[in-house]
């Protein structure tokens, strides 16, 4: 466990599946150099296969006895999907008469292949919601425990989990060990890479790109030990934000406000069945455990309170009027860390991500 822990809360009631977070992340980090297929941030339809395909069935994480569970490393083509591109250049270059618009590889699978399909029968009781996912920067990371080279580390200062690219030799046990399959193999450099929680931004007091760009303002970012932070209030004070699949035993630090509202079902005549709800609570229990009941009860009670009295700190928080209502990052904290350790203010916490733990001029020791 790190001294402090950054956390993100995502309000699933507000996610519209626009993928702006995905694009913000991709253009910032993963559109080049072997990372093309990776989505450090993705938004999947739930229920659905997810990304990578059926990630919840691929093992990893810990059992009740605390033993790391074996897992499976997804296949790039079948499970992640080969990123394809179109022949824009030849079409733009005056060859539109002789060529038709086509992808450069024949797509067989990709993220969001089953977008918006969900479950149930249309129009009676079909349902789905969006589930945005980044690395959970777990307190007990499966990836870290699986690495035979101690190449994965969790920063003491903020709990961000990173790959030491110098020590990593591309063995990929981390991918098997992560139950969320949020660490990826970069075949071009033969090393594993993952979401870095935009630490260069965080260290300068800026939220991660996915959170900053989120048009639904669903993402809250801050330190879990900061009682004034939104994440503290949502996770600890109101206990409405819950970790995803915490049964995997990794103690994830991305928390979710479960979807509380879903439309009623229709009967055979197309009439609303009063009091029914399309989203089965069992599905939410599977994702968020039994704590989901209390969370939903609190949210409903606060909504009612707000309706009746016009006052609810929780709902004001969730509405997120301003960016400043969503992010409490602490540039001063990082600068203090840099000062205390006599480090470069532009790299206040460490340089291990790029330079490696044991790499010194002259080799080793």
């Amino acid at each position: 466990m790190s001294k402090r822990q950054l956390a993100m809360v995502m309000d699933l009631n507000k996610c519209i599946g626009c993928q702006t977070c995905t694009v913000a992340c991709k253009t910032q980090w993963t559109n080049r150099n072997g990372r093309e297929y990776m989505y450090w941030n993705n938004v999947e339809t739930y229920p659905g296969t997810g990304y990578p395909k059926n990630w919840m069935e691929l093992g990893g994480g810990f059992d009740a006895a605390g033993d790391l569970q074996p897992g499976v490393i997804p296949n790039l083509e079948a499970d992640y999907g080969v990123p394809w591109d179109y022949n824009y250049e030849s079409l733009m270059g005056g060859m539109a008469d002789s060529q038709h618009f086509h992808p450069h590889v024949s797509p067989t699978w990709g993220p969001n292949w089953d977008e918006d399909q969900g479950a149930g029968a249309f129009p009676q009781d079909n349902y789905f919601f969006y589930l945005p996912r980044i690395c959970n920067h777990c307190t007990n990371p499966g990836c870290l425990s699986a690495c035979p080279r101690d190449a994965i580390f969790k920063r003491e200062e903020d709990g961000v989990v990173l790959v030491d690219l110098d020590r990593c030799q591309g063995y990929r046990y981390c991918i098997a060990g992560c139950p969320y399959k949020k660490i990826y193999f970069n075949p071009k450099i033969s090393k594993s890479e993952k979401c870095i929680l935009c630490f260069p931004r965080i260290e300068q007091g800026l939220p991660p790109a996915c959170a900053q760009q989120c048009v639904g303002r669903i993402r809250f970012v801050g330190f879990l030990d900061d009682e004034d932070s939104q994440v503290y209030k949502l996770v600890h004070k109101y206990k409405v934000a819950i970790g995803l699949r915490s049964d995997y035993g990794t103690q994830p630090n991305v928390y979710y406000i479960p979807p509380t509202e879903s439309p009623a079902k229709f009967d055979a005549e197309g009439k609303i069945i009063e009091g029914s709800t399309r989203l089965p609570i069992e599905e939410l229990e599977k994702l968020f455990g039994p704590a989901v009941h209390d969370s939903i009860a609190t949210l409903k009670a606060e909504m009612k309170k707000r309706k009746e009295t016009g006052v609810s700190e929780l709902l004001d928080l969730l509405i997120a009027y301003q960016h400043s209502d969503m992010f409490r990052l602490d540039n001063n904290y990082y600068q203090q860390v840099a000062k205390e350790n006599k480090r470069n203010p532009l790299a206040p916490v460490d340089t291990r991500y790029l330079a490696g733990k044991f790499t010194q001029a002259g080799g080793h020791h």
Partner: protein
Amino acid sequence: MKKILTSILSLGLAASAALAADTITAVKVSDVTDANAWAKAKFSSVTLYPQTAVHMNDKKANAANADDKAKKADVAALYDGKNIALMVKWADGTKSVQGAYSSDTYSDGFAVQFAGATKGSHALPYIGMGSDGRPVVVHLQKATEKVYEPNGNKDVSTQVNRNQTALFGKELADYDAKVASLAKTDYERVFVAEGFRSLTEIKDGSVKSNAAMAYANNGWTGTITRALKDDYVNLKGTVPVAIAVWDGDKMGRNGLKNLSSWVAVNLEGMKPDTKVVAEITEESKGNAEKGKAAVDANGCAGCHQITSKDAPSFMGPSLANVGGYSTVAYLRESILKPSAVVVPGYNRNAHSNTPWYTIEKGKRISAMTDFSFLDKKTVEDIVAYLKTLKAEVE
């Protein structure tokens, strides 16, 4: 090096008879980098056992390697005034090269481990990448495809976003040409290690070496050439080496490999190091049958997998192939002084309820009982039994 290998293969050395031995004679030649020098080489057969000390967490790979057998490799050595060269030939029916754009394929490869200076009474470091105060240098070569890797240095911080340069046609073409000239295709690494998990790549050029591998006739031929003396090793008389090979088809990488015990390479014309030779060639004088009874009686299976079919407890390392890749001296030491070499094994967090060692004053203290109370004969019997624990040769 590729050219040299091609001509070696054409010499038809594959047909040369190999002697089964745990010692190899390095023939003195005028220049080890001359491909024709290999015509004088004397091949010995070395057995490589599946590395089964710890059970990794890759489900498919574990299934693929559940019934691994030992393999034979033909190994020869040459040396000149400055360098030593080793050639390793092993059968592999499936040529595996790690795909340039694939997440779950692995390459064939081989490695040669050299012993660094050892402290104390030991002649040799622990076989599994050395041990505290007993370092090893490992030369690794893997079969890889040409990789598009912009600056050739694996330096991810300065890589270029193609999407943002797409508008600059000429610049992009120039850039691509530069990439093509810089891109490295060779996956060759040199590491220094004092026990597994401590493996650290030597990147400062302080080790002069060259490795290559070529596939022909359902098998690989790998060569490595390195200086006899540098910051890490000083090779003379008898050079202890260990060989490992990986099978990419079985998702081999890291510990999923076949490895030999220490092998003594005697430099022809030099005085052999009798201490090293004695440690490598020592045979157990105990009674294996009585040893088996002693292993049962002392409850070794409580923490160790005795055969690969036993359920792993995540405590002690599996002993399923310990007889294949361990020396008698190491086995004896491990029984009498369990904390002398404690392999770091799993990340302790991976099996937090079964820690196989504790750390006291920076030293790893094994959770294993000290069995020095056993009489000498029983210890030798146990060693004799442990030496029988190894997979059959395929």
